[in-house]
């Protein structure tokens, strides 16, 4: 098996393990990353929502916000499945975009 194939399998395994990224924080009762809080949490932490943040926050409506699939059930299991599928979609798109970009950017001669 070529190295690239083995590495893609490795990525696939990581994708399958991705739900650990929601399960482990949940087990520890941990929130999001430092400095990545939403407006509601900011208000809890500092007592108000900065004006500029209120204006800019959430202006972009991403298709799969917070790696959750629409209609996923709310328990940790539903969250995990959603996260895994979002991970798979994201990994595929990133790989595809990366590949196309590299093809586009790479040397055009035939020695490569």
């Amino acid at each position, binding site marked *: 098996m070529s190295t690239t194939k083995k590495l893609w399998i490795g990525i696939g395994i990581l994708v399958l393990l991705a739900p650990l990224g929601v399960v482990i924080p949940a087990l520890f009762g941990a929130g999001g990353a430092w400095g990545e809080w939403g407006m509601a949490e900011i208000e809890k932490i500092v007592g*108000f929502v900065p004006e500029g943040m209120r204006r800019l926050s959430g202006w*972009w409506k991403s298709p799969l916000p917070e790696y959750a699939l629409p209609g996923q059930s709310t328990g940790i299991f539903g969250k995990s499945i959603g996260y895994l599928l979002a991970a798979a*979609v994201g990994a595929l798109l990133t790989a595809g975009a990366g590949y196309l970009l590299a093809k586009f950017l790479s040397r055009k001669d035939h020695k490569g």
Partner: protein
Amino acid sequence: MHIPDGYLGPATYGAMYGIMVPVWAAASWKLNRTLKARQAPYLALGAAFSFVLMLFNIPVLGGTTGHAAGTTLIAVLLGPWAATVAVSVALIIQALLFGDGGITAIGANCFNMAAAGAFTGYGIYRLLAMGSQPTGRRRLVAGGVAAYVSLNVSALLAAFQLGLQPLIAKAADGRPLYAPFPLEVAMPAMALQHLLFFGFVEAAVTVLVIRYFQKNEPEMLM
């Protein structure tokens, strides 16, 4: 470390885009001269790897989480320009599709995690690995140290940009307009987590994968 929309004011996010657009342009030019078409799958792999790695949120003291980025590893294998592009692709897709990181903050996030991370990691790796065999232990140490420092540089840059906001963007009543945490809060918070924990995670991942390449595709480490 993914700065959301609303945390950076236009002066900062504009400046970061102002830095990154030329960097991306330079990377395109550089890769056009040095990246072979058959390396395209590796850049795709690097981007996907970085994307997936950043999904593994690890809790730390204080109730927050963090993640590794994989930038140094990609820089070791493909060079700093390819790593900048690969991680930028991951970050941009994270922002556009999943709202992980702001759109206004793409310049900043790419500068911190992709560009600064890639060049710091690459530079330190090359320095420490100088003259050593690709399959030797020194490469592993070099990779680990480089990854550790690189991730911390990324974290501190983000902390600096955030901590600067209350100083440079105030409302009429003196309250911060964007990220409300001053440097004295932001820098230690980010520094501690990354110096004491996430830096080591990044180092471990980097060392493990370099080891894999040493055993299976040492040519990639030339």
